[in-house]
């Protein structure tokens, strides 16, 4: 039993490690960017040049300069230090939302693909209906029911993005179910539960590494979008979405308050997308 579990876990991990050993320049650059964001999230003090909460009304709404790299906000707080400060919360929201949506999607997708028959059609229909509702609207539903808060934001993005993943996972499971090695295992008389554990799940879950990498970036984009609309983390926090929402009223006089936090979101999501696509290509055996 434990031997099977080990084989299930270690194989994709080994593959991932083998891939990481040699990668092109742009992937390396993206990994460095992700590393910087991770550093900002774990130890913001190392990167900050100012106190992110220090109010200095004399230097309010200054454009980016040598002293204030990203400019200052309406209360004179240093935007660069605030963006660094917000990285932790933003990344946590992105990771949390992805973990939630993947868990929902795996439960639905795997259950639907394995059960087949009526159970599959019912589960697939439920996913279809949720898929028919735009991601942001589904997220708005969650926020309108539970009221805006950090936890709601995570749940909203998690539920909003889950239907798409559930469909992908179900499709992946069904594709693996049809393969020759699963047929062979059946012919050899292996019990179904063992075939699922040893053959179907590990192979169907392989592409998830790449999907989740891209998914974290997407989750941060959706979460910051919610906060941008004023439906996420409340403005005193330095979370990127909250910065975007706070900067919205000043966009005509102070473009940096809106563009720079957005750039942080974009740089993070884009780096993860490029890394994820690279992983995808490698797992599919291209190049």
């Amino acid at each position: 039993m434990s031997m099977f579990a080990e084989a299930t876990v270690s194989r994709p991990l080994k593959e991932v490690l083998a891939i990481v050993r040699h990668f092109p320049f742009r992937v390396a650059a993206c990994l460095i960017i992700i590393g910087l964001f991770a550093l900002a999230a774990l130890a913001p003090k190392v990167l900050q040049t100012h106190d992110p909460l220090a109010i200095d009304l004399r230097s309010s709404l200054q454009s980016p300069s040598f002293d204030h790299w990203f400019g200052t906000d309406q209360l004179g707080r240093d935007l660069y230090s605030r963006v660094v400060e917000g990285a932790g919360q933003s990344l946590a929201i992105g990771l949390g939302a992805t973990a939630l949506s993947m868990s929902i999607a795996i439960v639905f997708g795997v259950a639907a693909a394995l059960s087949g028959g009526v159970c599959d059609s019912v589960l697939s229909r439920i996913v279809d209906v949720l898929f028919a509702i735009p991601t942001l609207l589904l997220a708005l539903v969650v926020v309108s029911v539970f009221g805006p808060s950090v936890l709601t934001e995570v749940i909203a993005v998690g539920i909003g993005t889950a239907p798409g993943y559930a469909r992908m996972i179900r499709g992946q499971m069904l594709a693996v179910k049809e393969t020759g090695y699963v047929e062979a295992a059946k012919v050899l008389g292996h019990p179904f539960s063992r075939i699922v554990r040893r053959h179907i799940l590990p192979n169907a879950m392989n592409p998830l590494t790449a999907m989740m990498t891209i998914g974290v970036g997407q989750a941060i984009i959706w979460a910051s979008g919610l906060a941008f609309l004023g439906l996420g983390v409340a403005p005193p926090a330095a979370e990127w979405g909250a910065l975007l929402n706070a900067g919205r009223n000043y966009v005509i006089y102070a473009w940096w308050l809106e563009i720079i936090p957005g750039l942080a979101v974009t740089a993070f999501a884009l780096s993860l997308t490029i890394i994820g696509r690279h992983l995808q290509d490698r797992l599919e055996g291209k190049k």
Partner: protein
Amino acid sequence: MTLILTTNDAMKIAAHHSIVWFARRILSGLVVVWAAATFAFVIQCVLPGDRAQIIINVTSGNVGLASSAELAAINAKYGFDQPLAIQYGKYISGILHGDLGESYQQHRPVAGIIAEQIGPTIGLAVTALLFAWIIAILTTLFIAGRDNIWAKLLNDTQVFFATAPPYWLATILLVVFAVKLRIFPVIGGSSPVGLILPTVALALELSGFFGQVVQNEFTRVLEQPFVTSARARGMSEFGVRLRHVLRHAALPGITLSGWALGKLLSGAILIEVVFARQGLGGVLVAATSSRDVPIVSGAVLISAGLFVLVSLIVDLTYRVVDPRINLT
């Protein structure tokens, strides 16, 4: 001619008939709409706290506890005191009569509020869809499948547009073209000039997605024998691309346009807020923050209905464009 058919065989043959296919599609579409309506009902019921209390608070703007007499009046007015099964029955029959319930805050029918606001949003979405296709097709036609710096640059740009948050792209356009260069008005209202920036903002993201898919298909088709044959006949490179390759590469675009509906609606909500445009976006955001759930669930139902309608149109178009397709 007499044939002995079992009912099963007859059904199999009938299933290939367009009318039967069409009826089945409509039926499954109705099931999706019904399920969405049930979902919309459920989210109104799971609202934590007492709904009557929320309605009173939302209306008065105060946070506090209302007297039991006030609560009872609201409960009786909205029918919250009745069993859930009866409330559900009323909700569904209301939908069949075009009644999506009443807004907690505005005290007006939800159907009316959405009907007022959906026009500008649909207009924005449709123009953005067309514009995204124009960008994707033109760039693919000229650049894709070639092995030069432009093709690589195009690929990177598409990934960038597909990934970058739509509200961020919209804000950049707003700052550059409206605030700095003053080419467009900052708040365009509903004038045609004011529609340009929001359309471009919404279209850029989609054009990235479309471009990636069409480009993949395009390079695949470029290797097909009929392309070599067209070249051998002496057709120019551009002619081959335009007449033979693009036609085949555009096929997945039909499906993609249907899939884009969700992206368009999500993006439109954000972009309408950036440009302070009239439309569903502003209404939905206001409704969400004041927990006016009937409006949000009404929008859920409408968007599910739109999705079903668009999927049906996509399938029909596919059937016309590519009759080989197996529709079951």
